[in-house]
């Protein structure tokens, strides 16, 4: 019997988001501290340490060159951690989803709620990082306002990527592949630490098809107030990919949890 899956309902999804927020509220003070230390360590170690040997990168002090990209990578780590390990445990070990799905919440509502929560966690990571950059005196201009919606969009995009992987695997160990063979290369080759135009043409073409690259370019444009048409191209790329991913991942979770 083939019947179309019911559409996602935002209010029902928000109930799942609320559940996660309730859990997070209990431990947020403990949870959030590392998010402030991480940028400090990166900026001190790489910006000042490595920066002592690299005078300038594309006309910027090295610490200013890497900061916008590192901000975006912190969103990536935050959002994907949530929709990979945490979702996997809730789905397969703690049986929390069995409880939720016997209420009026349907699988697609559940999945969308987790995406919103993943985006929220990404935003918390990004927000903490950004506040430290402000302390370092970076991005103190009106143009920086564009970074706020961007942080959430990037969080949502990576939440969909993480959840898509989670929907496909049955063993928690497989996340090692996702993190080591997918996210770590993204982290290293998306133009955070060195400009992409130094790399061979093929690498640049590959980079165009990866998600972090576009976020890093956008962030750097906003931080340095280089307003070009290319920024819209990067934004469009991320929106389209997020939209497609969302559709695919909602279907995948529905199939996984309604069987």
């Amino acid at each position, binding site marked *: *019997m083939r*019947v179309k899956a*019911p559409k996602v309902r935002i*209010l*029902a999804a928000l*109930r799942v988001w*609320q*559940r996660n927020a*309730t*859990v997070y509220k209990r431990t947020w003070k403990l949870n959030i501290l590392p998010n402030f230390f991480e940028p400090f360590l990166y900026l001190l170690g790489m910006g000042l340490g490595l920066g002592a040997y690299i005078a300038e990168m594309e006309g910027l002090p090295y610490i200013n060159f890497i900061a916008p990209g590192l901000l975006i990578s912190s969103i990536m780590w935050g959002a994907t951690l949530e929709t990979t390990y945490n979702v996997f445990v809730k789905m397969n070990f*703690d*049986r*929390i989803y*069995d*409880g*939720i*799905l*016997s*209420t*009026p*919440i*349907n699988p697609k509502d559940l999945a969308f709620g987790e995406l919103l929560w993943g985006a929220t966690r990404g935003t918390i990571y990004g927000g903490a990082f950004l506040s430290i950059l402000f302390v370092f005196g970076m991005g103190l201009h009106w143009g920086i306002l564009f970074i706020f919606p961007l942080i959430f969009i990037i969080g949502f995009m990576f939440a969909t990527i993480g959840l898509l992987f989670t929907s496909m695997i049955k063993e928690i160990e497989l996340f090692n592949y996702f993190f080591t063979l997918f996210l770590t290369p993204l982290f290293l080759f998306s133009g955070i630490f060195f400009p992409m135009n130094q790399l061979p043409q093929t690498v640049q073409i590959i980079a165009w098809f990866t998600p972090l690259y576009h976020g890093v370019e956008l962030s750097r444009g906003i931080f340095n107030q280089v307003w070009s048409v290319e920024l819209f191209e990067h934004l469009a790329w991320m929106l389209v990919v997020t939209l497609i991913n969302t559709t695919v991942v909602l279907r995948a979770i529905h199939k996984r*949890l*309604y*069987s």
Partner: protein
Amino acid sequence: MGKSAAIITAKNLTKEYRSLKAVNDVSFEIQPGSCFGFLGPNGAGKTTVMRMIYCVTPLTSGLLTVNGENVIENMSAVKRGIGVVTQDDSLDYDLNVINNLLVYARYYDLTREKAVQRANELIEFFQLEDKRNENVRTLSGGMKRRLQIARALINNPSILILDEPSTGLDPQARHQVWAKCHELIEQGVTLLLTTHYMDEAEQLCDKIAVMDRGSIITEASPWDLIKSEVSPYVVEIRGEEKSRKQILAAVFDQIDFHEALSDRLLLYTPDATPLHTQIQDMNIPVKTLLSRRSSLEDVFLKLTGRELLD
């Protein structure tokens, strides 16, 4: 009672997983306010039928309506009227006792005041006051089960589904759960449970469907099942095989039927006393000779076979 009175109507339910038919052409009707039990060995398809009713497993074919709503077309509406206690506990271990209830209430869109009021009522009804702010992990098995039932009742459902409600509980906790179930039946809640405990089915159910290998073999009230499938009384004899054979030959045409098992002989009869006396008077040496009322267990084992299924 007519068809329109049923609160759950199932017609020709079938669920296929690749080559396996987990549920095979199952039909039944459940009347509001009754307690309906699915009895069967592991893998009989009981849980799959439950999962179809609370909309987490799609049907391969058939028609299933709950409270007048189709389970495929109207999942959320169906689930709004049902409370579910799953077989493995699905409590939220990231939350404490009271928050398990309050967070659950939000899934049903209950207002905050209503949720708090209802949660307090349930905590009292299930005697969990002392554990209100405790982490769920610290609860005993019986308390966890009570909390799960409490949680399932947060939205005042007209139907409560209990998938093996007392599996893994100690005798005290089991009786507590049954007592609460009786109270709920008195309040007019329709109970739907699966079990492989005969005493549980006899204690709670008005009607029982015995399932085996994906099909309903028979459906009746517990006492009618005993009367129709076996005789009201059993005389049970243990002893040497030779003696058992001797006795069987002597009383063969006076009994309804018998079962000769590897370790004992069961004689089914409408009245145990005369048969018992007669066997005693034969003076054939046996280890034990006892008469008892037939139970659902006899029905169950007769219908689904006495050998292990898996």
